[in-house]
């Protein structure tokens, strides 16, 4: 099967930062209704294999577009900017300082008396920066400033990781 179409085309929408996630979900489920392997359970092995490939492709497309970070990386990849490569943000000292500061805050939380309110404050702080970066990306991407947009993505990557770590710490605190 030739899936040369891009992930946006799968859902019959045009490539853009702005994606209506609810609408995307409706389109996604509609497509899976048609191509999920369960629809081909009594069909030939060849058709089953095709259905597995089709459904996998649709799942990957949905997974990519619904996540802000993956969507941003994918938009840049469509423009020929590969986000896997090393970033330029290592020379951004302001960002570096902020990174170090946030990491320190995170590592000190579990030792503190009032861990929960501290972690909530940190989460709020990180999330608001994350949203700012998304707005920054949108602006740069739409102005064709792909190098700047690439930097924004690299920063988003750091904040996504940090949010995961905050989640892990919350889980540890809850289970303690």
């Amino acid at each position, binding site marked *: *099967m*030739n899936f040369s*179409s891009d992930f946006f*085309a*799968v*859902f*019959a929408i045009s490539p853009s930062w702005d994606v209506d996630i609810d609408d995307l979900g*409706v*389109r996604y*489920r*509609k*497509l*899976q*209704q*048609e*191509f*999920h*392997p*369960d*629809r*081909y*359970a*009594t*069909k*030939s*092995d*060849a*058709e089953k294999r*095709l*259905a*597995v*490939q*089709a*459904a*996998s*492709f649709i*799942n*990957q497309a*949905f*997974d990519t577009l619904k996540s802000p970070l993956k969507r941003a990386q994918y938009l840049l990849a469509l423009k020929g900017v590969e986000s896997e490569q090393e970033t330029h943000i290592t020379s951004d000292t302001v960002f570096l300082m902020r990174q170090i500061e946030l990491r320190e805050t995170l590592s000190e939380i579990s030792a503190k008396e009032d861990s929960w309110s501290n972690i909530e404050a940190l989460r709020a702080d990180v999330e608001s920066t994350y949203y700012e970066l998304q707005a920054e990306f949108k602006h740069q991407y739409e102005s064709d400033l792909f190098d700047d947009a690439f930097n924004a993505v690299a920063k988003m990557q750091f904040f996504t990781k940090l949010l995961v770590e905050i*989640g892990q710490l*919350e*889980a540890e605190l*809850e*289970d303690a």
Partner: protein
Amino acid sequence: MALLQISEPGQSPQPHQRRQAVGIDLGTTNSLVASVRSGMAETLPDEQGRHLLPSVVHYASQGATCVGNEAAEHNISDPLNTILSVKRLLGRGLEDVKMLGNQLPYDFQTDQGGMPKIATACGLVSPIQVSAEILRKLVSRAEASLDGALDGAVITVPAYFDEAQRQATKDAATLAGVKVLRLLNEPTAAAIAYGLDNEKEGVIAVYDLGGGTFDVSILRLSRGVFEVLATGGDSALGGDDFDHAIAEWLRQQVGMSESLNPTEQRILLETAKAAKEELTDSESVDIEILDWSGVLSRDVMDTLIEDLLNKTIRACRRSLRDAEIAVDKIDTVVLVGGSTRTRRVRDKVTEFFGVEPLTNLDPDRVVALGAALQAEVLIGNKSGDEMLLLDVIPLSLGIETMGGLIEKIIHRNTTIPVAKAQEFTTFKDGQTAMAVHILQGERELVDDCRSLARFELRGIPPMVAGAAKIRVTYQVDADGLLSVTARELTSNVESRIEVKPSYGLDEDEITQMLQDSFSHARDDMQARALREQQVDADRMIQDLLAALKEDGDKLLDTEEIQCLQVAVKELQKIRAETTEHRVLARQVETVGKTSETFAARRMDASIKSALAGHSLDEIEQG
């Protein structure tokens, strides 16, 4: 089974021809089989009217085996030959099995391949064989009840079952001669039973505490689509553990020594189990054991099981986090599994989710009912456009990298089917082979995760270190089963493996076991196999002719059409003449191969029309 049916999904080419499909709940303590009759799912009873089949197999010395209630009668008199809770051993290696050793008093041995087997009066049996006995019993019950052979079954597995456990379940089905339409996760099955019954919309949490396994799933249900957002649990935690906790308390009260013989162990466990069940309705229970008598109150039992329950609540919390759903966004909570009858379990779940759980369907039967509903859709009796399941993989899949570390390729709770590729390179000059070690689990180190399979990509042309590009692709199908491909991109050398976990059976072993078990009924099997092949052949002929008529001119050139027509004619001839099922099977396969391109083009065409917005236009109204 290769059959080519190219009619529209959900449309049966012969609407009047009903196919027989069942749902099977292969449980730790009890198993059930259910089917849909006149639109209603119901569990099927045996001749005595019993729906639950105890998952117990007894091996007697003359080579006779019995299954179910009959087998359970030997539980105390012949513990070593009476196999209970075999699901806990399914897909497990010797080390896992040894860890359960003091709970399951069997005589474990290993075969040449290092696979754990149980020594019985009938010789060594593997957990897969024991499970197959249970499946056979259920299938014959279904065939008697439905008055005909089965065309397929949906078999449920705990959502938290790993790759090896899933594969072992599928192997057991193959051994029992059951065509598996789908392995379905138990909580998802329960959600189907409830969702379709109550026409629910919204977010559902399913808390499934069975005899030996615990699962929790968070699902979103909208317009007939069941989307699993996250799943979690513990494939070695269940009501059995409550029994063991109570039995241990009893042992101390009675003052028995720590090393019990198998019969004493069984007596303690049976007493513990009976006490637990009685405490569902009463505040305390009088217990007599040997020459000791005493009282167990519900409060005391609650403290004995508290730690186990807290473990389940932690898993619920983690699944909510994975699903990115706040606990107050849960609309419905469903309780599944016999162990949710325990009062403290209900209270704990209600307290955590803040919602009174639904219990109007029998917690022992709900999984089988859901499986039957899904089987009905998959087999094509029901036009399928009203229901779809989007399930997830419960544990991350990764690959070993330098230093005994794991790089995750597919993360847990990713919707399946899924394919992910990652590129690696060589680290030595002139390196011509690369070892691929496939693992499952959440931890960072290889030693802490389950090893699923290893294979080698050979024949990489010698290059300087870092020049080769090796793409490793993980593909997980809708049953949650994995296949892995490795390909060197500059030379196109490829190597692939269907992941057969280290604890499964290999093909030869299955074939051998099948032959052994069927040798006494070889003629029956021949006849049955021939009949199945004939059904396949008829269907294929009919579908292919219809497809040729509809799309042949559009999608094929004259030569291709002729080629297919000749193939169909040959198949029709063999179908009419042969009594040898293998001959017919070969021809069915040949025609299947010949028509593969045609099938692919038809599917492509249908995808294109959907992606062109043809069906998306209707979303707004839908």
